[in-house]
């Protein structure tokens, strides 16, 4: 996490915004860039912690992943599934045409 890495510029913001599917107005890009740099600068002090023999911690729960039985208990609720859809037609969700 060298300082080099933490320097976010506008092209980086564009790339990250694209990955995040966020439309960022041109006029906001500079201040967003500054914010990101400030935050990344703030978290950079983690670099000083020696973690060479430390396992990453993803979950604090002490238990094992519970397993469920293979039984059909859900579904058959097209109406509820589609109820909040901005656009639907004959039982399908509808989106602008996707070209592969």
């Amino acid at each position, binding site marked *: 996490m060298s300082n080099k890495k933490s320097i976010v510029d506008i092209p980086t913001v564009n790339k990250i915004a694209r990955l995040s599917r966020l439309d960022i107005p041109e006029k906001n890009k500079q201040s967003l860039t500054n914010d*990101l740099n400030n*935050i990344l600068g703030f978290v950079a002090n983690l670099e000083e912690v020696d973690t060479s023999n430390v396992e990453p911690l993803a*979950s604090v729960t002490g238990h094992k992943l*519970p397993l469920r039985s293979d039984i059909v208990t859900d579904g058959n609720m097209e109406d509820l599934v589609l109820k909040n859809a*901005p656009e639907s037609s004959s039982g399908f969700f509808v989106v602008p045409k996707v070209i592969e």
Partner: protein
Amino acid sequence: MSDLLKYDLLGASEAIKSKEISSVELTNAYIEAIEKTSSLGAYLEIVKDKALEMAKVSDENISKGVSRPLEGLPIGIKDMFCTKDIKTTASSKILDNFYPTYESTVTQNLWNDGAVMLGKLSCDEFAMGSSNETAAKGNVINPWLKHKKMSPGGSSGGSAAAVAARSALAATGTDTGGSIRQPAAFCGITGLKPTYGRCSRWGIVAFSSSLDQAGPLTRTVSDAALMLNSMASYDKKDSTSANLNMPDLMSYLGNSIKGKKIGIPKEYTQDGISDDIVNFYQKSINWLKEAGAEIIPVSLPHTKYALPVYYIIAPAEASSNLARYDGVRFGQRKEASSLDEMYEATRGEGFGDEVKRRIMIGTYVLSSGYYDAYYLKAQKVRRLIKEDFENVFKKVDYILTPSTPTTSFELGKKQDPLTMYLNDIFTVPASLAGLPGISLPIGLDKLGLPIGIQLIANSFDEPGLISTAHVLEKSADFNFIADGAAK
């Protein structure tokens, strides 16, 4: 009518059970209080008809001699909880017009236990914030210091403001890095974040899945115990839910803490804490000593890395959790000619600045080339933080810290994101370790703003947390009411 607002949750419960008051009367008093305090902006949605319907059922139950643990008690629900057929937005524009077809486990537990639903409470958008200034529908105002517009804290700002303003007898909150405890402290009420896994996350809009935890915001420690009794449950629908029974927390009220060891972490007394808070922290230590507890200085050496860890992990998880808000199956859509443009426009318009900022940070720290340096590193330091607590809990039973470095601040005073993040400096470490914590009011600062103190317990020791907090509550004898509260 105003007499009815004097009851706390436990008091109202007893009054209803003894038929001293009816739930309909009480509910009507709260509906009136909501109207009176509407300028605070705490409620996003009020469900008057539903509330009265539920209250009527409760009164019928009482007349039949049936009474569930929360029978007839009117409460508010943070807008992060999905409530069936009641608009749920997470205070975001992107979820405007979202009517869940399902009820979150926690709220279902509350209704099953007889609670009465008053409405949905504002919060920071997607629970991202510490001032309730990121809500799409506007700020929530802290009922304290009526002459100024103070922040109620966040993200459960609407919940804390409503309880402090007496427009809800109690409220639910969610806490990811301090979002129950910090607003509770700012609003002079009690807020409890249970052990991660105590309350099911099913049906709660996810912010950061490895941290999010629901809990109560109440007037008193007893109320918190009463409400958490109902909120907590093992839920097979949540793989991270703990399969452990919660002992009846009410039976731990009034227990002595004689001989209990209280840890005072040296890392929590640093620059930037207001003098009033330092003073009351010292007072709290003395009260616990007087109650027979042993005070032990301890060290949590990785404390200063907690916020950086949090501001990597929470945005990373959020960037992924919020990907589902894409305008396809629910929520607002901004039309465009291609799918990708539709996504970008929908999310660009639907999310506010703070949410976008966190999604950007989260995407960045997970992206190729940066994952190891940021996300993986943060997960490793998170382990060290958890181990700090494990080591300390070998020596002590509870840890006492201030809840926040400062009391409430004025709304609208432009604060940059980083300064805002510092609000959670004392609450975030326990969140990262999954530990239960409670904030309770212990006094007022020079300006007349409430000061909160935080107790942290070992995993699943909510019973002990309640006992200790109850002792502290008695000593502090905080009986101030916000000047902006309904009367």
